[in-house]
């Protein structure tokens, strides 16, 4: 298993090594420090940035966009996915189309979102929603299909009502796949919102990162990258932790 102490130490060692390499390359001047400020300087900058009201405000803007898009896309996508999976006709018609839609890079639609919504909250939420919903629909369909027909027959033969079948068979069967879906959707969602902010925006953390890049403020840029990475990893790990707690029975 991945939990043994030895593996954990090795992982920490890899991360430390990356930071050390970064520090050395910059300090020794092998890579121009203006291009790659040292790890310690960048981390110090991160601390400083977190004190700034403007940065905190940008983070808040981004967080609200991400959450809004997520809260809209996940239930709606789950509902559509469920209906598709439960209805043969719907499934036959919609499934190939969804695969088509899923294969198109979503970013090419970003200019249209700007034209329709203008630059602002609605555009970014809309684009985040659009980036997320297809993966939610597809994962939910997969989750419904992971419900075993034998289990449904068992429930029926012991006289389960529709609600009992939903809560005692569908839900526990689907839970592991649904949590996985939630985790992956957040990655798509965050990517969508950040991209929209970097492309055209007046605020938000993505906009901030893009500005630092354009102005060649490498310390700030790297600090921003580290911050967003940590937030994304933390969310991901939280869901994974819930996943392992809920699906210990999966072998």
């Amino acid at each position, binding site marked *: 298993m991945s939990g043994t102490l030895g593996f954990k130490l090795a992982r920490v060692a890899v991360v430390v090594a990356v930071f050390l390499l970064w520090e050395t390359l910059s300090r020794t001047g092998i890579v121009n420090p203006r291009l790659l400020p040292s790890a310690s300087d960048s981390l110090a900058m991160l601390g400083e940035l977190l004190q700034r009201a403007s940065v905190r405000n940008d983070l808040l803007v981004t967080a609200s966009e991400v959450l809004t898009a997520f809260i809209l896309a996940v239930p709606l996508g789950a509902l559509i996915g469920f209906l598709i999976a439960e209805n043969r006709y719907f499934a036959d018609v919609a499934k190939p189309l969804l695969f088509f839609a899923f294969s198109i890079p979503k970013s090419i639609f970003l200019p249209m979102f700007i034209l329709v919504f203008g630059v602002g909250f609605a555009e970014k939420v809309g684009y985040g929603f659009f980036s997320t919903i297809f993966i939610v629909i597809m994962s939910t369909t997969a989750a419904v299909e992971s419900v075993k027909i*034998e*289990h449904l027959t*068992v429930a029926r033969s*012991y006289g389960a009502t529709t609600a009992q079948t939903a809560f005692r068979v569908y839900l*526990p069967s689907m839970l592991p796949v649904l949590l996985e879906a939630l985790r992956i959707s957040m990655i798509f969602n965050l990517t969508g919102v950040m991209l929209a902010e970097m492309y055209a925006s007046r605020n938000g953390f993505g906009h901030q990162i893009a500005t630092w890049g354009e102005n060649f403020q490498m310390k700030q840029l790297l600090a921003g990258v580290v911050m967003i990475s940590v937030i994304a990893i933390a969310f991901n790990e939280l869901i994974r932790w819930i996943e392992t707690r809920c699906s210990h*029975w*999966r*072998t």
Partner: protein
Amino acid sequence: MQPLANITPLKPASRAGAVEIRGVGQVFKTSTQDVTALEDVSMEVKPGRFVVLVGPSGCGKSTLLMMMAGLRQQTSGTVLINGAPIPKPDPNRVGVVFQEASLFPWLTAEENIEFPLTLRGTPKVERRAKAQDALKLVGLDGFGKRHPHELSGGMKQRVSIARGLVQDPPVLLMDEPFAALDEQTRMTMGDELLRIWAATGKTVVFVTHSLTEAVYLADEVVVMSARPGRIVDHLTVSLPRPRTYEMLSGDVFGSLRDRIWRHIRKSA
């Protein structure tokens, strides 16, 4: 108020555990053609008997069992359990043990066994007590807290049997319950099932592809033919009980198995 004791019961108690199939037919309508899965099937199982259904693959054994369980409605004819029709599943009359590992993997063994009781809102204490009794009956005392993936194939089917019996229905239906087990486990499970059957006095209708298993377990063997599914023979196994391993090599056993095999070879 009239004293309830004076009211004559509608169904005589002697019908409890009786399974009657009269002129049953089943036609499946598919997009290409109509499949006659069963045609004019009639049989009667007396209370407390162990009856085994055999027949070539696709002859409608599972379909017939589903009808007895109220999971499927026949296109024609009558199915009576305890002397009454079974328009929908009724766990008080019929317990079902399925082919594959049909246990819920997210529940422990005892929670799986309690499942039918949970659906009816039985209080937890009562549920637990009944599950413990059922676990003991199937020889799994002390394994209640394990999840299905922590149990062997044979143990899983023991849990399934316990789940089928937990509401104490007079009839137990089993669709190839031991098909996925290795030969040795299968033999042991056969003996275990006979022990449980003797202890509980249930009516058992059991489907299998193994002729040895059929003759070893049964009071009566019902042989079916395919396309359309019909009953071609109904024989009584007169071997004494308890059945023993030595009987397998005896003449009575051999001739019964041959007789069944000839029917199946003809119709396959």
